[in-house]
């Protein structure tokens, strides 16, 4: 269908909201409480637009496009309403970008930048202490804009049902269980809330200070834990050769969701305790050797034994932990080089 956005005509598919349509057309409308996964909430009111024929301002996230719809996201009335929303949010929290982990990827910052808000007009003092009690997730309620994405994520997306809103009016706050520190709560640290948070109110503790979003290289891969095969993005500090953060990719099979292991158990490759060199046991001790020595020694031992006792005295374990390619390599080696079918793996544990 056709819509007219800021006097320009665009073709968009059926069934989209005005906000989704605008995003497709490359027109930025500030929005905070909407996330494709948690759906329209209509709460932050940052995405208000004028729609011809409809009274008052409409939230772009809740109204569906109709053929021929005329939408204005750039009138003074619209911009004034958007500015007030962003200004009030900036005024009611401590949005100090310099030290914030979300700097550069913060949706509030992006909206303020777009609307040209340098600093907040008002100052709404609130006593909201940081919560650093949890092992992997830091909470900075002073950066919370009460958009509710974390609450929706916790209750509807991962259904861990830990977060909710507590209190009312200006005191409205996200609470963990019955307003416990997160570390003392029933939260299982899946981190969905962190992934959904548009600001720096919920951040990955272990990534703190280890690199700005734009400094880290993003590599898509598959989680190494259970058999779900969650799709993840590694945020990598190449210079220090380490993974700084893991986020879920919004694709099948996990749609962005992860568990505590997939999101936070990522440092093991960088552990000092890694095995780094080939070793051969000499006089009961493992001694570092070159690859050539290790391979030559192994090949000759294998050859000697199977020449004497037959290939079926050779057995190989593949693994449910290593790649398809490596498993295939092992079976091919076992069958084609050694000449036995004695290959198996830990499918049973």
């Amino acid at each position: 269908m056709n819509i007219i956005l800021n006097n320009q005509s665009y073709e968009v598919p059926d069934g989209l909201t005005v906000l989704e349509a605008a995003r497709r057309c490359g027109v930025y409308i500030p929005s905070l409480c909407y996330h494709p996964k948690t759906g329209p909430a209509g709460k932050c009111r940052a995405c208000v637009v004028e729609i011809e024929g409809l009274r008052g301002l409409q939230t772009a996230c809740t109204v569906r496009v109709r053929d021929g719809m005329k939408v204005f996201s750039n009138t003074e009335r619209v911009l004034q309403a958007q500015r007030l929303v962003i200004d009030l949010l900036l005024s009611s929290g401590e949005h100090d970008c310099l030290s914030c982990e979300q700097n550069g990827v913060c949706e509030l910052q992006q909206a303020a930048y777009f609307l040209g808000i340098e600093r907040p007009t008002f100052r709404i003092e609130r006593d909201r202490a940081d919560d650093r009690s949890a092992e992997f997730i830091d909470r900075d309620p002073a950066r919370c804009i009460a958009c509710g994405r974390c609450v929706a994520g916790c209750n509807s997306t991962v259904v861990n049902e830990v977060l909710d809103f507590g209190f009312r009016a200006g005191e409205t706050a996200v609470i963990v269980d019955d307003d416990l520190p997160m570390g003392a709560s029933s939260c299982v640290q899946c981190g969905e809330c962190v992934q959904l948070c548009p600001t720096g109110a919920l951040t990955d503790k272990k990534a703190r200070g280890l690199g700005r979003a734009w400094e880290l290289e993003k590599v898509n891969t598959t989680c190494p834990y259970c058999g779900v095969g969650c799709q993840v993005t590694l945020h990598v500090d190449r210079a220090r050769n380490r993974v700084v953060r893991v986020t879920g990719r919004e694709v099948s099979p996990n749609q962005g969701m992860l568990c505590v292991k997939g999101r936070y158990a990522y440092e093991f490759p960088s552990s000092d305790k890694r095995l780094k060199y080939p070793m051969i046991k000499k006089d009961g001790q493992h001694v570092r050797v070159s690859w050539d020595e290790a391979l030559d020694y192994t090949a000759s031992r294998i050859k000697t034994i199977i020449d004497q006792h037959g290939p079926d005295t050779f057995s190989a374990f593949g693994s449910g932990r290593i790649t398809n390619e490596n498993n295939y390599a092992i079976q091919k080696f076992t069958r084609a080089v050694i000449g036995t079918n004695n290959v198996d793996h830990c499918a049973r544990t």
Partner: protein
Amino acid sequence: MLSETAILRIKDQIARYPHRESALMPALDTAQRENGNYLSREAIREVAGLVGVTFSKAYGVATYYSMYNTERVGRYHLCVDTNVPAYLAGAERILAHLCRTLKIRVGETTPDGLFTLSEVEDLGSCGTCPVIQVNDVYYEKMTVAKTDALIASLREGIMPPRKDGSHYGTACSILLKNRGRKNAHTLAVYKRTGGYKALAKALAMQPAELLDMVKHATVRGRGGAGFPAGMKWGFLPKNDPRPVYLICNADEGEPGTFKDRQIMQYDPHLLIEGMAIAAHTIGCRQAFIYIRGEFEWIARILEEAIGEAKTAGLLGQLDIIVHRGKGSYECGEETALIESLEGKRGCPRIKPPFPANVGLYGCPTIVNNVETLSVMPFVVAHGPEAFRAIGTVGNYGPKLFGVSGAVRKPGVYEFPLGTPLETVLAAAGGVVGQLKAVIVGGLSVPILTAEEARGLPLDYDACIKAGTMLGSGGIMVMNEKVSIPSIALRAIEFYAHESCGQCTPCREGSVVVKRLLQGLVAGRGSAADIDTVLSICDTVIGSTLCPTGDAWGMPIRAMVRKFRTEFESLIR
């Protein structure tokens, strides 16, 4: 640890509702009552477990509604309403007197644990304020002397009986026809005056016929919006397998409004008969009355009346649950009310979908005000033409007007829609002093100067023409002694307290406007602050999720615009 009795009671409450989560609020109430009016974290957890909701959900609900005490309170919890009508009646003096007498500040508890003093928002007692609510009991028309007597009695452990009595009058004898009658709340008396005949007539009719009748009568919603009830009912989907729910909105909380309680307390069967007619028309078997929690005694009157009607076999298969709110203005908004009835925080929903299609438990739902439903017996008994014979074109029928503030006989008066303001004020004993300004539709509508109000016909359309709204018909009268900036401040304090907190302009904007007005009233403000207030109001209007942004944006803007010099005179 909850007692066995409490647990059994909660289990009963759970069984009472179509969905168990709806029992969360009554269950929390049960837990609070059982534990000296205090809702401990442990009790909330226990209730959450019984009802089957998460700790966070239960705690979120407990901290949303102001009547749940998550801090300990004294044996007598004194709640003084200081909202605009009470302010106009001098409630501040009562509050200050209580502070002196009890030697505590607002929010504190006396060291002997006897008294906790709280300043609260509108108690729906505008015609009889100042009012002090002690636990479940209202003490109205309070003076300093009466307050002293009350405290003395409470110190002796005696809760004095609640006294009735406010001014009233009726020019129509429809809604207040039984007001003066003794025991009018009983079925026997109600039937003696012809009660339940309309229902019998309605039950003999086809729902479609009834719907046409109500549509033709053009009963505009008395809750505030003035939307025709018949049309609303007509929006229900046809041939839908889902159950249809009827909810009577009795969450009378708009400052200046105290009309519905007159019907519910004195003539509950009128409402019940009206609901039964509506339920038959829309095919509903489970109805609710959502009544504000402060009206505990009225809720009991309703429950008794429903019991009587049921026992007498008058309701057939219809069941009516009286559900108590727990202190939230926002729940007067129909979708917030539905959320609340589902056991959630009272945050309005995005519309569409409208409740007629997706309402309570995701089912088709009609929400009507008490007064709206209470005219149905008349419409059915006398026919739509008789109804249309009352009032002005497009604004038919009787209307209750609650008059408070600077009048000699504040109270509730029933007049045809379209009656001139002066007539209503005259019925209320006339203005004390010089009329300076008036708010005709509850606190959320723009204020009128005396000039603007002159000759104003009190109906929906005329009020809009005059730049305001008839709203709930709560008329607050201000004379020359009243400072409009103080009224504006008290108004915004109310909204900043009652905002549900979900949408930004209302949640944060109300706080900013409150700070600015506080500064101005305290003499710390500047001319720029006045412009900022206006600009915020301008922007907030029409940009919030529910009408609450408008509900404070419009009146505050009107007060500042129309009485700007008064605001400017505060600048030093």
